[in-house]
């Protein structure tokens, strides 16, 4: 087990190195003088010189790379050319909003997807299974922004039951120290804020979670069906166990495994999808930060957000793989 985790950790290292090389190239292969390119319209001779210095552009390329990595390891992600703020600072203030959104979307996807997949498997080939299949087909093929705008139109514009965008009603005036609105409001016992923040969260979470929901539903259905045909399930029935017991102990315990892996893989899609969802719902997270950065040609911001998202994705999958090993004795005792 420890060996497995170690090996899994070691496998992540080359990916991290590769990632840093790619993102290093992203900046340093910018056409023309990278320093001038980064600064764009804000380029003054002074600033260009400072930037050249910061990027070590006068050193050999490998030293430039080492400087980049060393900066990263020291938590220095550069400064935004727009407002001169350290990028890491901007990032950290916005990231909680993105985490809140992706977690809510994931909860929705898992909480609905797994029961739905089990239901479809249990009624395989019936009309209700067909309905689930169609819903999941739609879920996979509706782009986040189309679904988001549709939800806005139905629930905010027409029915007026949920807010269309933003994270909190302006009138509520709440200072969130960590920017985890849901947690901060509870800590501060501002339940009105909590409820309002939760209501703001519903539509974006549904929009963002629909693709993972569809995929988790599909994989759960397929996995439950697969496992149901396994010999050991027949053995369990032949032993005279009740259907409920066969289902919970013999089928689900095994059917979980591929589902867990897929859930981990969905985290990447969620982070990427958050970029679009935050744009649709004016959600002040990292996603909008990066879109703004693209429009402002703030390359370093784009570079670092990609790096951090990829890093988070890798870490989550590392955790998921370790969790998988815990669930699966064939790995645990390998």
């Amino acid at each position: 087990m420890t060996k497995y985790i170690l090996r899994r950790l070691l496998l992540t290292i080359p990916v991290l190195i590769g990632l840093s090389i790619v993102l290093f190239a992203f900046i340093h292969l910018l056409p023309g003088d990278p320093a001038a390119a980064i600064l764009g319209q804000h380029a003054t001779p002074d600033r260009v010189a400072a930037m050249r210095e910061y990027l070590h552009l006068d050193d050999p390329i490998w030293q430039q790379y080492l400087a980049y990595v060393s900066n990263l390891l020291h938590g220095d992600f550069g400064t935004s050319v727009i407002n001169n703020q350290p990028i890491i600072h901007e990032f950290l203030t916005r990231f909680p909003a993105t985490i809140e959104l992706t977690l809510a979307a994931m909860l929705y996807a898992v909480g609905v997807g797994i029961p739905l997949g089990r239901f479809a498997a249990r009624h395989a080939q019936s009309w209700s299974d067909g309905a689930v299949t169609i819903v999941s087909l739609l879920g996979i093929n509706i782009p986040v922004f189309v679904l988001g705008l549709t939800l806005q139109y139905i629930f905010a514009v027409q029915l007026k039951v949920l807010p269309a965008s933003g994270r909190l009603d302006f009138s509520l005036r709440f200072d969130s120290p960590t920017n985890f609105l849901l947690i901060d409001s509870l800590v501060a016992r501002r339940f009105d804020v909590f409820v309002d923040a939760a209501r703001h969260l519903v539509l974006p979470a549904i929009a963002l979670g629909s693709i993972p929901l569809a995929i988790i539903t599909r994989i759960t259905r397929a996995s439950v069906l697969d496992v149901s045909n396994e010999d050991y399930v027949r053995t369990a029935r032949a032993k005279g166990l009740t259907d409920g017991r066969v289902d919970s102990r013999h089928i689900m315990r095994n059917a979980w495994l591929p589902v867990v892996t897929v859930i981990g893989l969905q985290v990447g899609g969620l982070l990427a999808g958050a970029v679009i969802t935050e744009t649709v719902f004016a959600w002040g997270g990292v996603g909008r930060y990066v879109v703004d950065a693209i429009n402002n040609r703030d390359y370093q911001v784009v570079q670092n957000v990609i790096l951090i998202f990829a890093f988070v994705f890798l870490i989550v999958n590392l955790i998921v793989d370790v969790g998988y090993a815990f669930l699966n004795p064939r790995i645990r005792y390998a």
Partner: protein
Amino acid sequence: MAAPAIPATGRAIEVRASRGLWRDAMRRLLRNKPALLGLLFIGIFVFAAVFAPLIAPYGPLEGTLVQRMKPPGGAHLFGTDLQGRDELTRILYGAQVSLLAGVASVIMGLSIGGIAGALAGGLGGWVDSVLMRVVDVMLSIPGILLAIGIVAWLDRGLPQIMFAVAMTNAPIFARILRGSLLSLRNSDYVTAAQSIGAPPSRILLRHMLPNSLTALIVAATLALATAIIDVAGLGFLGLGPPDPRTPEWGTMLTDSTKFLRQAPWLIFLPGLAIVISAIGFNLLGDGLRESLDPRLKR
């Protein structure tokens, strides 16, 4: 001990199987109702793209502000957009952009990924290790974020968009091709072909490629669905074609979001066009997978 069975008959059936693989697959596909529905959707999409200039009632840039945001009906079946242009016309022309960008990016992705996968699976050794680590790195950047980064880096433009979307698909194709090449290299019938002295090129062409091909065809069809969605997504983020007048579905949506209340059709109709095209390729891809590999059928 194996059950008694005559070898000759077994062989006869196998010969038949390899000869008729594609025909059988086609026959199964045509019996697959979801796949047929997918083909219908794709047909509509391709038809719209190819014949847009002929069937569109207006020109894609034709319109006056006086005519803006007319609801569907009357002279404008799908209404008009913010500039008073005919929405139906723009959706039809938008199919051109989507189809072009989608197909081009998948072909590009297939070429890049195919070469990488063939090298990795065919040569093995350190080439394989290095290429697969590169693939890992690219796959570690989630989905459209990679495309966003590439477009941000290369600047806006249709070729850039195609390349960006291609790069999100290429690692997937590379993995598939490598995987199937590796599993085939060790499979019984390639070993058998080797043992009767078939030349390697023949083994690759006659035995390995057709089998890897089926996996790639399925993946490419499914990738077309994601490509259409990703291209629209880039457009929606403002990273679409540089000329803002280009009828691109995602860009058309962005422009209209502010008028969701007044002109919802400007959201729903292009949205529907994206969804239908994507579903078409998805259904076809699933159908192809089932018909090319009958063992998968449930």
